[in-house]
Structures are given as C-alpha cells and as structure tokens.
C-alpha cells in the first residue's frame, strides 16, 4: 500500500527546501528584499544549529536516573574547543568521537 500522505508530505517538504535554497540565487540582482528579513537571516544558522545540538548532546542516552549525559557533554565541549582552534571538520569529528569512546571505556560512570 502506498503511503500517499507520507509522499505528499515529503514532496511539500522538498518544494519548501528548494524554494529556500533557490530564493536569492534565482532572484534578479536588482530585486528589493525587506531589511528585516535580511537582518533576521543573519542569526538563523547561529540559532537553528545550536537548537538542534543542545538536546542531542545534553540529554540523549543519559544514564538512568541522571538528567545530564556528562560524557556526551564533555566530548562536545572538547570538540567545540578544537573546532574553534582549527576549523577542521574531520578533526572535530575525530576528536569528539575519540573523547566519547575514551570516556565510555575508561570513565567512572
């Protein structure tokens, strides 16, 4: 059975995504864009990505009875410091994963 509802949803999601990506690229160079829009867009990436990161790092797979996942939080802080220093995508990934594995293998919790 085909999930028409699901396909309709992802097609709408795809149209929205393409529209956002294409917006300024396909717009004529002299088109007027409202100032408030440009001003708020400056902070979109700075807001959305941390809003995705925070619950995933702080709470996911927290040990039973604990509200904070100390290992994931620690590994993320180490990776963030590395990312700020080096700006290397792959290095950040490697340092963060290595820190988490080390803590899980060797840590007290």
């Amino acid at each position, binding site marked *: 059975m085909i999930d028409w509802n699901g396909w309709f949803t992802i097609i709408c*999601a795809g149209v929205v995504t393409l529209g956002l990506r294409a917006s300024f690229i396909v717009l004529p160079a002299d088109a007027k864009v409202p100032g408030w829009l440009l001003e708020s867009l400056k902070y979109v990436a700075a807001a959305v990505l941390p809003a995705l990161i925070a619950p995933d790092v702080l709470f996911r797979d927290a040990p039973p009875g604990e509200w904070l996942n100390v290992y994931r939080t620690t*590994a993320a802080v180490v990776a963030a410091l590395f990312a700020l220093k080096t700006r290397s995508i792959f290095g*950040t990934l490697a340092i963060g994963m290595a820190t988490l594995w080390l803590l899980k293998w060797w840590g007290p919790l």
Partner: protein
Amino acid sequence: MKTTRSAFIAGFRDQAPGILGNVPFALITGAAASAAGVDPWLALGMSIIMFAGAAQLAAISLMAEHAPGAIVVLTVLIVNLRMMMYSAAMAPYFRHTPVARKWLFSYLLTDHTFALITTKFNKQKPPRHLDAYYFGATGTMWLVWQAGMAIGIFAGAQVPAKWSLDFAIPLVFLSLVLPAMHTRSHWAAAIAAATAAAFCASLPLRLGLIAGAVTGVIVGMCFERLAAAKTGSRA
C-alpha cells in the same frame, strides 16, 4: 583551475573533508529511518527530494510519531531556513549562470558547500570555471550522501548502538556553526537558542526546536540593536 576538468577535481578535493564527515551522518539518518519504521522507499525518496540531512532527520523523528504532515513541513521549513541565508550569500557567485543551472545549483547547496565557497572565493570576482568547481564539490557530495542513506536504510541498525555513532551528527553541526560565530550577537543568539531548546526538549512534536530557533533569532537581533545603541553606531 585552468580547465573545467581541473576545476571539477579541485572542487571535489576541497570538499573531501566535508564529504567524509557526512558519511556517518548519512548512514545514521538512513538507519534512523528504518529504525523508526518509515517505509524504505519513502525514506530514500525523501533523501532524493530534499537532500538536507538535518531536516530529513527531524522529519523522520516526526513521521515516526505520526505527526501531522503540516507539522513535518513546518519543522523542515524552520530547520532549512538557514539555506535562505546561504542562498543570499551564494547569489553573487552565480550572477551569470544560466537559469536552469541556478535551480540545479540551488538544489545541491548545503552547509559544507556554502562554507567552502564563501571562505575560498571572492564574490566580487569569482574565478573562471566556478560552475565546474561547484559541480565537483556538490555532485560528489550528493552521490556519497544518497549512497550512505541507501546503505543506512537497507542495512538497518547493523552498527552496534554502543559505538554511539549518532554522536557524529551534533559534532558535524558544531564544526559548521562555530566558524559562523562572527560577532557577540551571534554568540547571544546561539546561547539563547541552545538554552531555550534544552528547556523545551520535553515538548511534543519537536516544538523545542522551533522554540529554540525563534528565541535565538530574536535574541540575536535585540542584542545587535542594544550593542548599536551603546556604541552609537550599527554593529
């Protein structure tokens, strides 16, 4: 970058670290879809139609909860709103690109590509063969992403959970967002967004994500206004 061929290869080479970082991301997103009980063909179709990892992941978790389609699309809109900012930053580079190709290039635009192009090239005078470079950087990213998704979906959750490979996803986001922290207002936006999202994490339908994003943007804008009022000039 003397020929289109060498430009294509240069694009691929410069994008390679980003592509490599996206491999676990794609595998996990695919595995998450099959673990959530999303139809494999629907999950693969979503990946090809959207080609946006963070939004796909958010959509999958909502579809697993049988959330209404409108909520899924709204969440995708919020998660992908940053693409509009990328689009604004990329537009000058593609001023002379044919329209059909502009749509194709828009479809292929991701966080990594935005970061790569805007840091590497001057938008006042983009290099010759930028189109080939862009295609080398994004086409390969597309192929690897779809392949990783397919393996993740059909191989399912074969990777042991104790490897915590899903931790790669926030790490990829971290490596993307930190270089974008240009001013104190950006930091204010990020801290406010993270705090609001954390406090609202237990809300249903991933409303915490929307709350965090909206809070962050408002705080960033207010912070900029306050800083400007203090120094007497626009920051």
